[in-house]
């Protein structure tokens, strides 16, 4: 491993990533540790958002932008698979790019992490690359997992206490997935925690045998959140393997499709909540686990909320993992209600069948990796959701077991997209805005300017009133919003960034 020592830390302060709202900078994937994607900036607000205009655009000439840019001082850092750009946050002028063609899955790249003058970048062949943030020079490169098993890195790493936290993506072979922590300076492994129980863990009883458990999946697709006071790291895990065939893995299949609370110093799982026990629909539970402090049924609580891909909105006490609310936010029929722990009870009739089973709920899930937002001003939780129907097949070999990693297939019949504002205390929809027929991946940003930024899948970029969904500003960016909007203020000017396919747009108020 090549490692060049550079005295960088003297010139570059550590960005403050706390639970307090994102202010002038956006130093991490979600802006801060909480995952709320709420900014305290209010220069752009309800009184002037109608005059929002283009400040600059950056043309990548590359793949669809799915990453959330970081803003550190006057530099933005954003990615597509294989490429990192550093761009002037005032002008959109390219400062440098780093390109590293690789084998592996190029489905998505959600962004980078920044720490002490360094940029941390995951690749399609499952390497973690450390770059000098000043010039994009590579400082080191470590292999996290074996690309030949379909492992890759799609998530933006998270920096906690000087450690790089990341997890493996991949959906090609039956393999175990994991979260790990590495030293910021050297890339050396500090701890590694699998999304599957180790032999001897009581959770091992949720698998029929060690063989199925040892390659049982639980991929990581989205960056987690962190509470510095409780010193707990929250991370959502993906579906079990094989994906659609539950035969051969009877049981709840912990710790797949779970919200996990981990000790960031050791990687130990402190508590887990399973969003989809014995998942046979690729529901995952990786959506951002959002942290906020608020009253719950008259009592102040430290909460964690997730609008999960299976269509349930979950609210838990983030200290203990105690379930406070499990409420469907779209029409779904895969579950027969919830158990004593608040986890949905899967209905075997809606599991994939050899001759097909109709399942209410979008085949791609009720939401996916697009970022939700929680606005402490409205006390509402916002998610871009999908409704519809899918038809699910089970395909088994002559021995009654799946021949491949999927073990079946799903046909998406119809999907319609809708932006939902949820009351976190009931899970009920306060207001909704139809977004269009089909699927999209627009994320959400809320701000102290009493604004909600998102996009619909009809090609509109939008600023809405977060209280009721009224449109306050809209424009067409030549495609649909493909990443999550973010915002920052530089030299007294607030910018909002939106990625549309291969173009990054910066919006601001007229300079006069």
């Amino acid at each position, binding site marked *: 491993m090549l490692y060049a020592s550079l005295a960088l830390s003297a010139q570059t302060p550590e960005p403050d990533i706390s639970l307090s709202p994102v202010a002038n900078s956006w130093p991490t994937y979600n802006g801060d540790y909480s995952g709320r994607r709420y900014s305290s900036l209010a220069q752009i607000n309800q009184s002037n958002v109608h005059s929002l205009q283009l400040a600059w655009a950056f043309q990548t000439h590359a793949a669809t932008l799915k990453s959330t840019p970081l803003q550190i001082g006057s530099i933005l850092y954003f990615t597509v698979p294989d490429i990192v750009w550093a761009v002037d946050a005032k002008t959109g002028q390219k400062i440098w790019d780093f390109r590293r063609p690789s084998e592996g*899955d190029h489905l998505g790249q959600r962004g980078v992490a920044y720490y002490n003058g360094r940029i941390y970048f995951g690749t399609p062949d499952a390497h973690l690359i450390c770059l000098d943030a000043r010039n994009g020079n590579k400082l080191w490169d470590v292999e996290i997992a*074996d690309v*030949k*098993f*379909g492992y890759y890195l799609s998530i933006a790493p998270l920096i906690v206490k000087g450690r790089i936290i990341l997890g493996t993506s991949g*959906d*090609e*072979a*039956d393999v175990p997935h994991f979260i790990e922590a590495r030293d910021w300076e050297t890339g050396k492994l500090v701890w590694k925690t699998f999304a599957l129980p180790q032999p001897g863990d009581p959770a091992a009883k949720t698998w029929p045998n060690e063989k199925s458990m040892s*390659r049982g999946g639980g991929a990581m697709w989205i960056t987690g959140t962190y509470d510095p006071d409780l010193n707990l790291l929250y991370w959502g895990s993906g579906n079990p393997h094989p*994906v*659609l065939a539950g035969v051969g893995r009877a049981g709840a299949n912990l710790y797949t499709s779970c919200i996990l609370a981990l000790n960031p110093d050791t990687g130990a799982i402190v508590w887990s909540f399973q969003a989809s026990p014995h998942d046979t629909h*690729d529901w995952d539970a990786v959506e951002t686990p959002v942290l906020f402090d608020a009253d719950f049924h008259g009592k102040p609580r430290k909460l964690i909320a997730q609008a999960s891909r299976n269509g349930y909105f979950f609210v838990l006490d983030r200290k203990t993992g105690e379930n406070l609310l499990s409420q469907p936010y779209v029409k779904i029929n895969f579950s027969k209600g919830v158990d004593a722990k608040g986890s949905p009870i899967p209905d075997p*009739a809606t599991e994939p*069948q*050899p*001759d*097909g*089973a*109709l399942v*209410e709920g979008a085949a791609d899930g009720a939401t996916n990796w697009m970022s939700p937002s929680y606005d402490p001003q409205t006390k509402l939780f916002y998610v871009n959701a999908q409704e519809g*129907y899918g*038809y699910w*097949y089970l*395909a088994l070999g002559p021995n009654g077991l799946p*021949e*491949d*990693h*999927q*073990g*079946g*297939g*799903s*046909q998406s*019949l*119809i999907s319609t997209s809708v932006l939902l504002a949820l009351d976190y205390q009931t899970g009920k929809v306060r207001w909704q*805005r139809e977004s*269009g*027929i089909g699927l999209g991946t627009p994320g959400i940003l809320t701000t102290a300017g009493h604004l909600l930024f998102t996009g*619909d899948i*009809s*090609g*509109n970029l939008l600023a809405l009133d977060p209280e009721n969904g009224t*449109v306050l500003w*809209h424009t067409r960016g030549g495609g649909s919003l493909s990443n999550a909007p973010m915002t920052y203020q530089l030299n007294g000017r607030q910018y909002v960034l939106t990625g549309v396919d291969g173009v990054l747009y910066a919006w601001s108020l007229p300079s006069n």
Partner: protein
Amino acid sequence: MDKEDAKRGNDKYQQSCAICHGTDARGGSGSSLIDSSLVRHDVDGNLIGPVIMEGRTSKGMPAYPTFTQGQISDIAAFLHARIEVTNSVESSGPVGGYQLKKLLTGNVEAGKRYFNGEGGCARCHSPQKDLAGIASKYSPVELESRFLYPPVDLRTATITLPSNKTITGRLVHLDAFYVAIIAGTGWYRSWPLNTVKVEVKDPLDGHMELLHKYTNKDIHDVFSYLETLK
């Protein structure tokens, strides 16, 4: 990857390796070769060859020094083909494809009854006209998803202008701000939504209503009936 190589490799593998590594290479008394990093990183036998030639005596695998380079290359081709079958990135269906007989569990007569009665399909469709030969036109899985909800947008819109004149055409765009149609003239036309009245008709409404009420048995019956329309 050459299919012939893989076929010869399969024969040799079944003869010499399957007894420990399993007929499907997923393991038995010996390890799973599908889950072997060495096998996955192998190119044309460059890593598998030495293991076969020298064995792994500490793990109970004997050496096979008489294997030729060609036989090793064939076995490697067979194992890579097996890995390709077990890998799957998409959820669009099994790598080996669907078998019609596993899908045909419905009752043809019941399907026909549903088509002409409760389902209301006969209101718009006819086995003699638009559905003639439909089962030959699409693969079983495609036919099934198409009758459940056709992957087409057939919506029409009637636009009422401020003058009260109406224009009807195929709907091509409708959002909160704009509506656009291909009018009867064949020309594209669009209007800001706040200047016109729009009435949308969707011939697929019937398909959507059925999705709300189908049982899986209804679907399997109708599918089995449609599969008779060759």
